[in-house]
């Protein structure tokens, strides 16, 4: 009896240490605040991240096995969909919003341009289920994964259980998305005093702090709030933004303030992708603000910018590009994982 107990406690010790060896601590970049995501409910591990990466790139999540998350969120454009103002989903169906860039997800309180999703784990369900995106349902996705060659072993490695569940599927995708941290732009190295802005960038930074940073707040370049930034409503879409979720008139035309990191690569811009170029965005703020009841206080007074100053702001925005993020091999299509499956 005693011996059994001893073996049992030895075994549980081995299990406990197996877990702690595999767990990865989430690294918070120096200037960044405390993450919003609760990692204690979904502790990171290399195997879970890799499983999530495979799922992110795998069209098995869609009804016709043709569309993956990466179809609309590709790395070289900071995980948005370039060239498509409105998202482009299954069987060439068009969605009604521009797909946002994905980065620094651990610091976001809500997701989607109107904040309809309250947690990163729940985010994947929206595109999987949306009839114009992946048009699947999670129960069927889980059934497909369960009979695949690849996934039961990947889930076993990640969660110690080869029985696949919706919970584990969603948590693994979250883990991959949580690793998409961008904090290594020229701006960041200037802040770390490892580099300096040129004169134009510096002027742009001063103008930015005066006119833009109330909403696009450093270091994440978003205050994670919903604001009406004076875009005229597109009557072919009639998208009232946050109002769709709260049904509160005071929220009409408010959209989540997006990050401006990697903005050089994540065009087209705004919830409906109406602007292709940064110069159009700056002209909007300088000359195109549409007055309405819910227009943000910060934009009530016109932003006066000379032609040179507009260029200065753009020069500053370009310092937010992070090549080490856009070309980070840890985010690439996971060839090695998928080729493993065809070998067996």
């Amino acid at each position: 009896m005693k011996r059994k107990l001893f073996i049992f406690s030895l075994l549980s010790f081995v299990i406990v240490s197996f877990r702690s060896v595999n767990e990865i601590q989430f690294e918070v970049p120096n200037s960044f605040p405390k993450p919003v995501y609760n990692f204690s409910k979904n502790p990171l591990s290399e195997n879970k991240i890799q499983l999530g990466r495979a799922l992110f790139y795998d069209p098995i999540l869609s009804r016709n096995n043709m569309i993956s998350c990466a179809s609309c969120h590709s790395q070289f454009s900071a995980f948005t969909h370039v060239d498509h103002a409105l998202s482009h989903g299954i069987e060439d169906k068009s969605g009604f919003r521009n797909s946002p860039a994905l980065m620094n997800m651990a610091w976001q309180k809500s997701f989607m341009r109107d904040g309809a999703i309250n947690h990163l784990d729940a985010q994947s369900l929206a595109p999987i289920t949306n009839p114009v995106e992946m048009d699947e349902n999670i129960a069927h996705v889980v059934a497909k994964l369960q009979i695949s060659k690849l996934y039961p072993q990947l889930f076993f490695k990640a969660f110690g259980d080869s029985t696949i569940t919706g919970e584990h599927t969603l948590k693994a995708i979250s883990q991959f998305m949580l690793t998409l941290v961008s904090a290594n732009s020229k701006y960041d190295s200037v802040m770390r005093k490892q580099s300096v802005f040129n004169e134009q960038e510096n002027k742009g930074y001063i103008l930015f702090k005066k006119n833009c940073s109330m909403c696009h707040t450093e270091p994440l370049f978003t205050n994670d709030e919903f604001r009406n930034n004076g875009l005229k409503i597109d009557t072919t879409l009639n998208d009232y933004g946050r109002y769709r979720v709260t049904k509160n008139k005071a929220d009409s035309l408010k959209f989540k303030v997006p990050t401006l990191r990697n903005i050089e690569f994540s065009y087209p811009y705004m919830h409906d992708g109406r602007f292709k170029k940064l110069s159009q965005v700056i002209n909007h703020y300088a000359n195109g603000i549409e007055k309405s009841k819910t227009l943000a206080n910060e934009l009530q007074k016109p932003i006066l910018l000379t032609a040179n100053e507009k260029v200065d702001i753009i020069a500053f925005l370009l310092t937010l590009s992070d090549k080490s993020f856009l070309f980070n091999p840890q985010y690439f299509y996971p060839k090695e994982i998928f080729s493993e499956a065809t070998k067996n």
Partner: protein
Amino acid sequence: MLLSFIAFTNAINAQSASTIGFSFAYGSRVLNIDDSLNLPNDSTFLRITELKFYISNIRFLKNGEVVLEEKNSFHLVDANQIIPNQILVENKQNIAFDEIKFDLGIDSITNVSGAMGGDLDPTKGMYWTWQNGYINFKLEGTSQLCKTRNNEFTFHLGGYQQPYYCLQTLHFKTNNSSTMNFKLDVQKILNQVDLAKTNHVMSPCEEAVILSKIVANAFNLLQN
């Protein structure tokens, strides 16, 4: 040794647990999913095709004070199940109680806590995806009163934020019994709904709040 162990665990089960059961009725009749439920003088051709809901946060009280709570208390009850819908709550110390309380639906904190497993797994189909959150209660069926496609009506009730907070707390006096059987009478719900007008509620809204209250009142504890 082994035998006595089994006998011993059986004894625990019999005494130190409370069984909570659910059954379904339409007025005086037993409700079976997909069966026609027509009553005499009724030309509505009523049929219930889906009836599912969450019971959560089960607790027992004595003189108004909580004396026993179920840990991790989330249960999906589905009328379309061959095995009886029974929940076993452990009561190792045989704590005496005179009241039971539970929630119909899923609380706000759980709604904002990300992916969950077990009965809360999103594969259970009780989850909204475009604006995420749990569906507390699902009732679907057909009736001639609905001038909709295939005469269908669909009620998916939920919402975890004010002003459309739908969770309902139910409580019943009980005489400390180890089995409690609850009956949900769907007639009590549909009697208060004008199916010709209200037949499609599928998001957090005022109607969902009103309907949730009606549903809560359609449960009763059978006296054994």
